[in-house]
């Protein structure tokens, strides 16, 4: 009897310990609300760019004495982790990522409004860059950090070997892509191991629409067109249809795109240009550092996108600074954001160590001179394209669903070559119209 009771007691004790362990495991972790905790920052970065950010944050801490906790999640997991943290109502204090996240974040109430007039140094920022932080209702919910325009990277050595001119029009671009695909430009004796165009055509995050939008604009088409602050679906316009038909020809008729394009995400796509599997890549200038190593700085050239029927418009977006909701350190949040757009921080972001890519591409600060900082004519091209021919995606409340659905339709059109472009785009237009209405922005 006595022994039994002792055992019962032991069991009860063990149970209590277990309960305690589980409960303590639950209550640990979140430190939000503690004013002495460092300010937590996340960026959507890979290993090389993380190091550049570390340098910037160190400069901030040295200057202000405010510690920064910078331990961002893996690049490919970023969106997921932000959602996880939002669910536990414990977002990082500051997030730097694509301006494309503005819509989804705003819609879910993740963001704190930015008071431009109270933001130190706001007048030094390029007005066009401020648009990256502007939402559909004209308010600002993010501060611009970096801007860029897409440029065309072309294998110069291949082009010269085949005796072709620098492409200036769509026709010349298509012809060059065709020659890269069929005429063995790398001269290894195998005419079937190279292709013309790198096209990240996966539907993941709507990548395909990101890439294709450039060509749609160059034909005078659009996904959503704006007039007087109101948006209308334009994805089935004759101009858009023309662009999509031309793109479909690249995938289906001349087959100048990499054969695995339609499941390719951007991160994979870089490899194929790097390894000399394809010679034409419309992408952002942040890739220069990597491609200077392979295929090599002298092997490729940077040119503005060749003109389509209606010009050579390309995507010009960038990264913005989001001040996240629920932070206990609003003053520090603002201070860090103000520091990040100062000439000092912007230049640190543009001049990384060897092998690292810049995190600030074109500075958003008027007082930073691209020419002086980079001393690289390729960056001058980027700056020129941004100034003359770049545009962002529209400021509808949330552009993400439009991009996603457009990418899915285009992916399907390019995969099933027998499909009817006009009919599919009309169907897509119907769906986008529904989305537009549900976002209460329909004309």
């Amino acid at each position, binding site marked *: *009897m006595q022994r*039994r*009771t002792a*055992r*019962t007691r032991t*069991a*009860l004790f*063990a*149970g209590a310990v*277990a*309960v305690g*362990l*589980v409960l303590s*495991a*639950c209550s640990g972790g979140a430190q939000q609300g503690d004013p002495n905790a460092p300010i937590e920052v996340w960026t959507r970065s890979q290993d090389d760019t993380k190091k550049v950010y570390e340098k910037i944050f160190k400069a901030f801490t040295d200057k202000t004495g405010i510690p920064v906790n910078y331990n961002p999640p893996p690049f490919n997991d970023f*969106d*997921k982790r932000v*959602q996880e943290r*939002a*669910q536990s*109502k414990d977002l990082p204090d500051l997030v730097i990522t694509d301006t494309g996240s503005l819509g*989804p974040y705003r*819609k*879910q*109430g*993740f963001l704190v409004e930015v008071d431009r007039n109270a933001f130190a140094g706001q007048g030094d920022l390029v007005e066009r860059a401020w648009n990256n932080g502007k939402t559909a209702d004209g308010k600002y919910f993010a501060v611009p950090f970096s801007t860029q325009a897409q440029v065309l990277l072309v294998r110069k050595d291949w082009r010269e070997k085949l005796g072709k001119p620098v492409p200036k029009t769509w026709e010349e671009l298509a012809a060059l892509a065709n020659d890269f695909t069929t005429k063995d430009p790398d001269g290894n004796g*195998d005419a*079937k*191991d190279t*292709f013309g165009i790198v096209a990240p*055509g*996966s*539907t*993941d*995050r*709507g990548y395909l629409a990101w890439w294709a939008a450039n060509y749609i604009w160059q034909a005078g088409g659009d996904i959503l067109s704006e007039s007087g602050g109101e948006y209308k679906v334009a994805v089935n316009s004759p101009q858009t249809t023309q662009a999509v038909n031309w793109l479909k020809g690249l995938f289906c008729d001349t087959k100048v795109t*990499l*054969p*695995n*394009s*339609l*499941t390719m*995400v951007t991160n*994979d796509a870089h490899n194929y240009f790097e390894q000399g599997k394809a010679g034409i890549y419309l992408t952002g200038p942040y890739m220069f550092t990597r491609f200077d190593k392979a295929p090599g700085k002298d092997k490729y050239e940077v040119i503005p996108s060749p003109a389509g029927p209606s010009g050579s418009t390309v995507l010009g977006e960038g990264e913005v600074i989001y001040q996240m*909701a*629920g932070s206990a350190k609003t003053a520090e949040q603002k201070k860090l954001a103000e520091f990040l757009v100062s000439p000092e921080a912007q230049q640190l972001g543009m001049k990384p160590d060897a092998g690292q890519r810049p995190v600030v591409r074109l500075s958003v600060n008027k007082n930073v001179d691209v020419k002086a900082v980079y001393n690289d004519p390729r960056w001058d091209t980027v700056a020129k394209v941004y100034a003359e021919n770049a545009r962002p995606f529209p400021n509808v409340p949330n552009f*993400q*669903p439009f991009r*996603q659905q457009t990418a*899915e339709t285009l*992916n*399907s059109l*390019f*995969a*099933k070559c027998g499909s009817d472009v006009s009919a599919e785009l009309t169907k897509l237009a119907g769906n986008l119209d529904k989305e537009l209405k549900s976002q209460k922005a329909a004309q």
Partner: protein
Amino acid sequence: MTLTDVGSAASGGGAVESHSARRRPPRRRLAVTIIPWLFLLPALLLFLVFKYVPMAEGIRLSLFEVRPFLGDLWVGLDNYARVLGDERFHNALNNTLILAIGQTAGAMLIGFGLALLLEGTARSLWFVRSAVFLPVVAATAVVGEIWRLLYYPAEGGFLNSLLSWVGLGPSTFLDHPDTSLWSVMAVGIWKGAPYDMVILLAGLAGIDRQLYESAAIDGCTTWQRIRYITLPALRPAITILLTLASIRGLRVFTEVYVLTGGGPAGSTDVWMTRVFSLGFETSELGVASAGSVVLFLVTLLLTLGVQLLRRRREA
């Protein structure tokens, strides 16, 4: 299998109680009732925190438009209506079923073949079995990336080089709607078969050798031995494999996500990639939760169905 186990454990517990109920003081009877629960408590608490609470939360979210910082909006069954009415979800369901059935059947057939080949106690067999088992322990994401390279759809690709030796190809593999789902399925089978093999090996070891000997004396062919001795004896193992494989098949995600991301043209989009895309790419957590709840219900029904079928057959 699981149900019978739980049943016997429960009746075992009951037996202890009725046995100990013989004129025990009430305090002690109470202790006897409580102690088994105390031992279960740590596990139950962990389950509660890491399984049941998130599950309940998922069901709750499926009824709302989720906006953590603005307050969730009650939308009732709208999210479910959107999931069940969405053409892309229908397409995904279709692909999921084809993939689940194909992978389950393929992995089981190949697993069975491997088990028959590699049954025995020799040292060399132990080594070969371990080698064959490797795909199961390799991380799915890594496996996916490697297969993506192997599947490169032009002439330089590894598998296409092999095909060209026998005068075939190049195949499009992952990058054409006609071949993509089958290519994903092949990776699933490659990864799943060794697991099935191990369970079936355990089943094979339990078969009385004398049955084979008497069958041999009676002049049975190899096929007859498999048909009338091996397969019936493996029935419990096969049931367990079927249940596990169908659940695994329905919630397949990583390999598809890494291999194709659901493309091209949605031809490999499965239920979970759809849910993921809604939840984390379009931030529609409410709709994504509704999709997950539907999948959960289907899985539950399927599991119960298999168990009922088995019990009826055994009764």
